[in-house]
C-alpha cells in the first residue's frame, strides 16, 4: 500500500509566559492509503497538537511549528503541507483532507442551516452548481444516517442532538471525497450508546469510501475495534507504534503496558486490581533530555536518564522508543 502522508521529525512549541511548552518533540510516522491509524495518548501527549500542526491550525503566536515536514501525496503529486500558503492549505483542508473534532458545536455555524453548510463546502471545493450541490448534500445526509434528509436539510444545528450534529460534521468531512479523514476525539463528548453509533458509522464509511482515517483518542477501548495500526504518544514523542493486534497482545513499551493494565476488563468476572502508573504526566516546560517516561517507569535504568530513546524496529510493523526489552527482561543491546 502506498503512503499518502509522511510526517518527518515534527517539532511544535508554544511560547507562553510560563516558559516554552515543548508540545511535540520530533514525531515521525506514515499513513498508508485506506488504513485507519489511531493516535492514542493522554492530555498533554501532543496527539492533537501533531494533527493541528499538520493542518496549519496552530494559533501563532504563541504556537510555532519549528521543524519537520508533512508530505501529502494525492493523485501522483506530493507536497509538504507545512510549506503551503494559508490559501492552498484551506483548499486541502475540507477538500482532500476532511476533519472531525470533538465538539461539533464549534465546527458548525449556528446561524446557517446544515444543508447550506454542506452545500457551501461542495460548491467551494468542487465548483459545482447550487442545484447539484443540493442533491449531493441530501445524499450525504442519508449516507451518514440522518433520517428524512430532505427535511433536515433546512434545519439549524441547534435542532439536532449531539450525535446527529456529529453526523453532520462527518457529512461535511466526507463531502469532497477526501483521501484522509482526521478525527480528533470525535466520540469523547458523546454518550456510550451514541458513541457506538458513530464508531459504527466510521466503520461503514471506511468500507464504502476507502478513505484513510487518523483517529485521535485517549480511549484504548474504541481503538481496539476500529484501528489497523496504533501509535501511542507520550510527552510529545511516539512511544510505540504497532499493528493493532500486536500492540494489545505484546506491548513493548512500559507506558503502553501500563495503559492497558489500567483499563478494567469487563469480560472477566473477577476484578483484578488495576495496574496503575505511578506519578503524574510530564511537565512539558522542561526541555526533553531523556526518556520522557523515565520518571514514572519501573524499568528505567541509567541510560534512560541520559538520552532520548530513538525508535527501535522490532519487526516490520512494530517500533518502540525504549531502551528496555520487556520480553527478555533486560536492557536492549546497542
Amino acid at each position, binding site marked *: 500500500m502506498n503512503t499518502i502522508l509522511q510526517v518527518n521529525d515534527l517539532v511544535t512549541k508554544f511560547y507562553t509566559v510560563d516558559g516554552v511548552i515543548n508540545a511535540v518533540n520530533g514525531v515521525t510516522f506514515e499513513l498508508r492509503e485506506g488504513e485507519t491509524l489511531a493516535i492514542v495518548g493522554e492530555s498533554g501527549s501532543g496527539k492533537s497538537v501533531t494533527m493541528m500542526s499538520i493542518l496549519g491550525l496552530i494559533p501563532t503566536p504563541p504556537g510555532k511549528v519549528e521543524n519537520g515536514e508533512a508530505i501529502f501525496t494525492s493523485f501522483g503529486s506530493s507536497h509538504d503541507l507545512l510549506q503551503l500558503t494559508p490559501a492552498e492549505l484551506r483548499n486541502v483542508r475540507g477538500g482532500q483532507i476532511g476533519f472531525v473534532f470533538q465538539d461539533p458545536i464549534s465546527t458548525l455555524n449556528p446561524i446557517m442551516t446544515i444543508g447550506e453548510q454542506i452545500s457551501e463546502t461542495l460548491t467551494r471545493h468542487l465548483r459545482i452548481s447550487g442545484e447539484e450541490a443540493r442533491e449531493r448534500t441530501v445524499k450525504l445526509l442519508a449516507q451518514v444516517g440522518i433520517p428524512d434528509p430532505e427535511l433536515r436539510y433546512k434545519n439549524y444545528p441547534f435542532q439536532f442532538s449531539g450525535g446527529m450534529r456529529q453526523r453532520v460534521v462527518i457529512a461535511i468531512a466526507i463531502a469532497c471525497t477526501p483521501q484522509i479523514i482526521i478525527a480528533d476525539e470525535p466520540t469523547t463528548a458523546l*454518550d456510550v450508546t451514541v458513541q457506538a453509533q458513530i464508531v459504527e458509522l466510521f466503520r461503514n464509511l471506511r468500507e464504502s469510501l476507502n478513505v484513510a482515517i487518523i483517529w485521535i483518542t485517549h480511549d484504548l477501548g474504541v481503538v481496539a475495534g476500529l484501528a489497523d495500526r496504533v501509535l501511542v504518544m507520550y510527552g510529545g514523542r511516539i512511544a510505540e507504534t504497532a499493528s493493532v493486534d500486536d500492540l494489545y497482545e505484546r506491548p513493548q513499551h512500559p507506558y503502553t503496558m501500563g495503559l492497558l493494565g489500567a483499563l478494567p476488563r469487563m*469480560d472477566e468476572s473477577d476484578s483484578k486490581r488495576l495496574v496503575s502508573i505511578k506519578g*503524574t504526566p510530564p511537565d512539558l516546560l522542561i526541555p526533553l533530555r531523556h526518556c520522557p517516561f523515565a520518571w514514572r517507569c519501573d524499568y528505567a535504568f541509567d541510560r534512560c536518564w541520559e538520552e532520548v530513546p530513538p525508535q527501535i524496529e522490532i519487526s516490520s510493523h512494530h517500533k518502540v522508543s525504549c531502551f528496555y526489552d520487556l520480553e527478555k527482561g533486560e536492557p536492549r543491546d546497542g
Partner: protein
Amino acid sequence: MADNNLILEIRDLRKYFPIVGGLLGRQVGLVRAVDGVSFSIRRGETLGLVGESGCGKSTTGRAILLLHQPTSGEVVFEGQDLTLLPTEELRKLRVKMQMIFQDPYASLNPRHSVQKIVGEPLMINGLMKPGSPELRARVAEMLQLVGLDPFYMRRFPHEFSGGQRQRIGIARALSINPSFIICDEPISALDVSIQAQVVNLLQDLQDQLGLTYLFIAHDLSMVKHISHRIAVMYLGKIMELTDRNELFNNPLHPYTQSLISAVPFPDPKLERKRRRFILKGDPPSPANPPRGCVFHTRCPLAVEECYTIEPEFHEIQPDHYIACHLADEKGSSKIPEKTVLAAELA
C-alpha cells in the same frame, strides 16, 4: 423492615426541577430528573449507579445528601428519614455521609491551602480548633492515607495535578470519619493512567476503613470493576439492578444489553468477533419523557404495552430487579433471539 445491614434506603425518590420562563418567571414545565427511584445499600458494599448524561444519576446522589431537596420520597440513612429531620439535626447526621466530586478543579476552593481544605470539615463541626496541633496532625494523617506527602499541606490547589487534587478531595471527605461516601464521577475528569490510581485508592480505603460507596459513573467497565451491585438508570428511572456479574452474564433489560454492547473491549480479536446491538437515536429529554416505558422510543423490542403502560420496578429473581414488560418471572427474557452479548464472549 429494620435491617441493620442496610446503611441507606431510598424509597420512591423524586426530584423535579421547574422550568421557568416568561417575564414573570412563571413555571412553564418540569424536568423529571429523578422520577421514582428506589434502592438500598448494604453496609460495606459499593453500589454502582450507571447511566448516560442527563439520566439523573448525579441528581440522585445530590438528593440523597439533600444538597437538592427531594420533591418527594424517603431517604432513610441509618434508620432515620433525612427528609423529615430539622436542619440542625440533618447537619449533624450529614457528617457521616460525604461526597467526592467529579471535577477536582472546581470542587476545591482555589484560595484555601490544602491544610484548610482537608481540615475544614473538622473545624466546621467543632471537632478540632483551627491552627491546633491536633488538626495539623489529623490533616497530615489524612494526606498520608491518600498517598500525598503531608509536607505540601501549605500549598494551594492550583499547584497540584488533577489526580493529586482528587486525592485532596478524598482526604477532605474522609477527615471526619464518614461511613458512607457518594463518589460522583470521581475519575471521569482524569487521564487513564491516573484513573487507575484513584480507583485503587478508593478500593484500598474501603478495605481499610469499612466504607460504603455509592459510585456514580457513566463508564460501565469501571463501574463493574469497583461495584458489588449495579443499578442502571435511564431517564430518571432505574431499569435494572442486580449483582455485577449477574448484570453482565444475564442482563435482562434491553437497555442494559445495549449498554454492555456499546462498551468497547480493549482487545482487537474480541472486538472483531462481537455482534453489536446498537441503539438508534439519542435519549429523549427528561422535560418531556415518553409515556409508558421511558425506553420504548429506542427499544428495538418494544411491544404494544410498552407504549402505554409503565413497567413496574420489581424483583424478578432473588436480588435481581428490573423494570421491563419483556422479562418474565423465570428470569429468562422474552427477548426473541439471544442478543445477549456477555454470553458470546465465552
